[in-house]
């Protein structure tokens, strides 16, 4: 790689990414039987941790902080917050 000249401070070497999944205490778990594919969980997720797969929606866990908004907002009660690493 070309030596950086340090003229103007610039961030051009990839992306700053924090491991926010490590913060998670409760994990949202979707009950696909109850889900009606409305997409509210995707719309309200601050972290963009809900992925659209075709017409379906899936929670991804790489960056989910476990805030619980999706579970609280799901009109069908299809998402439960489950303690990470087993139940109490």
């Amino acid at each position, binding site marked *: 790689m070309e030596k950086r000249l340090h003229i103007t401070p610039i961030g051009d070497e990839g992306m700053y*990414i924090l491991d926010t999944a490590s913060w998670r205490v409760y994990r949202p778990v979707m009950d696909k039987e109850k889900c009606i594919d409305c*997409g509210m969980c995707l719309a309200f997720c601050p972290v*963009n941790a809900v992925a659209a797969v075709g017409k379906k929606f899936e929670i991804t866990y790489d960056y989910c*902080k476990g805030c619980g908004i999706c579970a*609280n907002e799901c009109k069908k009660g299809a998402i439960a917050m489950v303690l990470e690493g087993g139940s109490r």
Partner: protein
Amino acid sequence: MSYIDILKEAEDQVTPGMSACQGCGGELILRTVLKIAGKNTIVGIPPGCMAGAGVVGWNYANGLKIPVHIPLLDNTASFLTGLSQMYERKGRGEVNMIGIAGDGATADCGFQSLSAAAERNEKMLYVCYDNEGYMNTGYQRSSTTTKGSRTSTTPIGAVINGKQQQQKYLPLIMSMHGLTYCATASPSHMADFVKKVEKGLAASKKGFAYLHVFSPCPTGWAYSPEKAIEVARNAVRSNMFPLWEMDEDGYHMNVRNKTPISVKEFIQGIGKFKNLTEEDINSIQQIADQRFHILMRLAEQGME
């Protein structure tokens, strides 16, 4: 295309992992605005929660997939003025110029440059995520903090109980600047919010577009993170945060609450309001009613 389709098909332009708190309204607002704006965008994000959460980069890395600069706390609209005019001059006026700033950088220290850029009708979309305080530095009060709020600089004391002054209602002040588009939005009303971002981006090609967005803040307001959208929804339902817009046809009320909930219901479960007296609550209710009355009159005016 439904707003859900728009959101699910748009590419997220923000780092997947940023250090905004759990349930942060600002993070949701940032991702939503930039999803809709897309790649052909330059963003200015002044000091505040979003910048502090790493989206303006760290060391040699970027926190966004698109170009971003952290202007000074008080010059976002001025900085973007120069950039926007330069892009127009280079024949690249199609590039979105977006400022995303908290209420401190917007209503307080940044207000002078914001007001001037709006008055000159500079071509940009300016989004304020209003979490009603300087949350990144430990939730100190700002001019948009609701009366009675407990903040770190307006504590609950033996003699003085929270913030004594009423909130500065910035969106209405902004609407009087001769700008192109002005609206309020809330992440709880996502369809309305998405539509307003689209309208704001279109308006920003002609002049100044201002979007004032309610940004629920679990950490500063002291409620649990999963309630963020519920708090935002109740702010709208109680007329504490009415959803309206001003475009070339005048003022429009976008959400009309047939049976608004009371301020008393709105503040339930929000820690920063827990020491309010009946008198305080009545006073806040009165402010909300008066403000809503003015907005309704403006909206009705437009309908004549």
